[in-house]
């Protein structure tokens, strides 16, 4: 029997392994803008210099908006059986970016716009070979 493995949803997206994982982004030193996922250039059409550096982003932010998915998403995602609704967050972080990701550790009825959330890394789904595909998620910060 093969051992169950963790597979990153993609390289270069977040610091891993880590106790306090952070999203990896591009910061433009010329115009100050941030880009997630990271990019090889600054996307601001008015920015001339485009001097970019790789940075990590703030782990906490405020819930800007949310949804809860009640129908299983299509492949490559492998929904749990039985399917459990998936809360989705759009989180505004201090850098000014809004990041979209799954929410965990919260019931749909407890979701409130404006609540503080923290970045975590966990299983998005278990693929057909039994490996956990891991990515960034958001979890509520206890007051």
């Amino acid at each position, binding site marked *: 029997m093969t051992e169950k493995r963790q597979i990153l949803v993609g390289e270069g997206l977040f610091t891993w392994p880590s106790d306090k994982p952070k999203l990896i982004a591009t910061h433009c030193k010329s115009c100050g803008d941030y880009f997630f996922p990271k990019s090889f250039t600054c996307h601001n059409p008015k920015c001339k210099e485009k001097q970019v550096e790789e940075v990590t982003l703030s782990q906490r932010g405020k819930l*800007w908006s949310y949804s809860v*998915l009640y129908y299983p998403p299509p492949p490559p995602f492998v929904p749990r059986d039985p399917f459990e609704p998936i809360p989705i967050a759009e989180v505004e972080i201090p850098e000014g970016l809004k990041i979209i990701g799954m929410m965990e550790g919260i019931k749909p009825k407890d979701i409130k716009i404006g609540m503080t959330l923290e970045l975590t890394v966990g299983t998005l789904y278990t693929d057909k070979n039994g490996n956990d595909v891991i990515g960034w998620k958001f979890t509520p910060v206890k007051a």
Partner: protein
Amino acid sequence: MTRVAIIGVGLHPWGKFPEKPWTQIMVDTAREALADAGVEWTDIQTLIAGSQIWGGRKGTYAGNYFAEVMGETGIPIINVNNACATAGAVMRVAYMTIASGVADLVMAAGVDKSPKGFFPSLPVYHQEPMPSVDTLRWNIGLPNPVFWALECRRRMELYGVTDADLAKTKVVMSKHGVLNPKARYRKIFTEEEVLNSAMVADPLRLYEICATSDGAGAVVLCNLQKAKKYTTKPIIVAASSVASGVYGDPTARIPSLGINPKPGVPIISESYVAAKAAYDQAGIGPEDIDFVELPDNSAWHPLQYLETMGFCKEGESHLLFRKEETLIGGKLPVCPSGGFSSFGEATMAQGFVQVYEIVKQLREEAGARQVKGAKVGIAEVYGAAANNSALILKK
């Protein structure tokens, strides 16, 4: 620039047609448009066609495979893909071909057969160092309606839009769609039925998200000066615009994972720019429009688009639905065709539902759906990756 008119339209009835080849769906529709225009296929000097994404390699070059069965004549064929806004882009290229004086008779066409349920992910054959945002979002479990849901929830929070307001948009579309023999869903839905339908992507319910259909549309465009030879009712293309996103757009667009909003950039900036460009080109404003065909992909869309297209202030669109002003007979009929809510999406073709409807309305051939005294209509169609197009037609 040469002025451009529409002299013929065809629209296939929408539904699911697994037994009918898409080329046949397209041929039937094109023949309807040609007969409507009173021209022969062999008269068509250029074909602009939607390039499918679900139909594999053959679908990618849909225009060529369609022409093959219509009978090849060696004309220029251009295949266009601007996501669900493709028909608008097809119209724009067809319009420009005539406006530039390159050709006098052009066909714009699009046909699609949709997969069932959520539009799925597509394979990527390139080798890349990092997965694209579009690849990532499928792995995070984000089908298209989730992005609309995020915008919709925020709107509800900001402006007091209720679940009942969302349901009302579907009710209005269904009251129009029931009158349209080409529509797939011809039944009036009550607010209660909509609210009792299954939650899909909270706050959007099953009946608040358009289905995925098979369908086709075709339009014959002509140099206006030569149109009189074919018709007594040429419909004038007052504007045909295409726009893309503006840097700093705050929208959770399809697909996005990190949004970088900038002050002053409007939500769905591509749609705002396309509408503005169309008004500028036509030399008119929203107050001159008699009815609107907008992309009601979900219950969020009509609310957003009425504001984006300049028909009301931000945060007030749901009030137009509450006051029933959006019904045929109201101050601003919205989607007299029944909209995508009554037709379903067929990515390459859905914009042609709108073109067909405006032409029928302006010719006063819309039967029970007729908007009385309609002289000017606008259509706007929306696609993933910040694709958008607007079209203003007048008598």
